[in-house]
């Protein structure tokens, strides 16, 4: 059983479409379409660990500004993004908050914190 998956490299404006052949147990058996070795490394990382820093907002209370911008301290798996978003929709924060302060710690017990990206 083999499967081909495609990943677009974001390393430069070329945007190479890199094809990975995935064998049994998810092992990468072949790769083509990249123009440079950074592209190869990117595709492997993107295949093995498809995660993103999540940026969003949380609602405030007792504050003239209705929202505080936040981000995760580490990348979150793409499959867990919406769970993280739901968790953020449930909380409300009050001033004062310092930029970098944790507003949600150890989200889903992943060791990822959500921190303020602005003062409030």
């Amino acid at each position: 059983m083999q499967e081909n998956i495609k990943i677009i490299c974001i390393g430069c404006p070329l945007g190479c479409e890199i094809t990975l052949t995935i064998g049994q147990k998810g092992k990468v058996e072949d790769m083509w379409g990249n123009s440079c070795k950074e592209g190869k490394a990117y595709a492997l990382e993107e295949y093995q660990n498809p995660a993103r820093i999540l940026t969003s907002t949380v609602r405030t209370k007792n504050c003239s500004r209705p929202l505080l911008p936040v981000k995760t301290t580490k990348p979150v798996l793409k499959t867990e993004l919406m769970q993280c978003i739901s968790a953020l929709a449930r909380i409300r924060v009050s001033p004062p908050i310092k930029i970098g302060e944790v507003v949600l710690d150890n989200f889903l017990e992943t060791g990822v914190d959500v921190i303020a990206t602005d003062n409030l």
Partner: protein
Amino acid sequence: MAAYETEVLIIGGGIAGTTIARELSKYKTDAMLVEKEMDFGQGITKSSSTIVNQGCNVVTFRPEYHNSRLVWAGMPLMEPLCKELQVPYKKIGSLTLFKNRAGMRRPNKLLSRFDEWSKKYLPHAKPLQLIDNDTLHNWEPNISKDFIGAVYDPNIAITDPVRLTIALAENAGQNGIGIMPDTKVLGIATGTEKFVVQTNKGTIKSRYIINAAGEYVVKIAREINADDFVLYPVKSYMAVLDKKVGNLLAHMVTSEEHGTVNPSVHGNLFFGISPGSQRLGKIHDHATDKIIADAALEHARKLVPAISKKDIINSWVGFIMYRNFEMGWHECSVGVSRWVPRFINASIGFPGICAAPAAAQEVIDLLAQEGLQLAQNPDFNPNRKAAPIFHELSDDEKRQLIASDRRYGQIICRCETVTEGEIVEAIKNGARSLDGVKFRCRPGMGRCQGGFCGPKVTRILARELGISPEEVTKKGDGSHYALYKSKELLEAE
């Protein structure tokens, strides 16, 4: 639901209805005006080219047409009206261009007929003049060199039709007419002595009805079988250009085949296709389409080649209600219904802004004819004080204004230099929506079309009206600016 009783009910708050209301406020009578939209002049009036004092083109305007007679009678009324109401009015003159000697037949006919007719029908009009090639291109260096001469009509002026309409409604209100925006007529029945009109704000009983519903005039008349006329809606198209090219022209220019280009009182340039060259439109369909837009641009560029697509900041369609399609736009329907007494239709035709002041006087005569007692209102005040317009003031005046109210120091709309003070004043004077504010004091009228000021005006409206920002609308119910609060959709899941 509230119940109202009145003598005269005016349906429609466009230029026709508000001019009639204001004219009626000169008399001691009990009258109301209902407008279905949140604000006045938001139908046909809004789509106007803003040109007034048309009528000297006596090849198209003729004594047998009712609309022409109204336009002629209205010419001396427009300037004093704008002055009393402190609405912008500027005489710019028009140039009707022609290309060659053959093209001069029509101008020659026009000039000789004008000489003949003006004494009788247009005693107030300044004479038309034939302008030669050199003078033409000296006056207007940006018009196409294809044109070799023009007929100059010094009478043509421009105004801001929506501001005029709002001012008329305000002034009528100050003089005792009940002014009700956001009030939609749902049905009309004949009572014993009075009509019974159902609206979303309650029942209104009125002895007389004036149907000035513009685009909806047939629909309203049909409610009570007073539709003893046929109207043909015709689409017109207008576009507005960035102020940075506003100085391309000083006069209105037009030619037989290429529509119109004209300056606006706010320093923009408008262009549009004249209704005569337009096909019939589907009534109430306000969509612009590529065919009309491309044609209009092409025609405008024939007149003024420097006009460019990239300088267009907005465009729209309007409707012209032809009374008789074969006869063109010159006929209109102002009169008592043949079938329903005390029901007056006031579909004033095209050009409506020019026809309105005289049409209003005619409607008053019709009311008297139908038995309404009309005694002069001794308290009538013709004057309305307009709100300050920050960017039109001198630096010293600006300083004084800010000193009197700090909110005039806060610019909200960058493109049109509109201050918070002006927006608050507009809301105080009746604006209830983003468009209401926009048509009164222009935030969002400029080159960015509200991209920058939209959220800010929304917040000011919410604050001044004591509502939440997501309740703010562009133009009344169903046109909310933002539909949900942050996270609301995530909570619903």
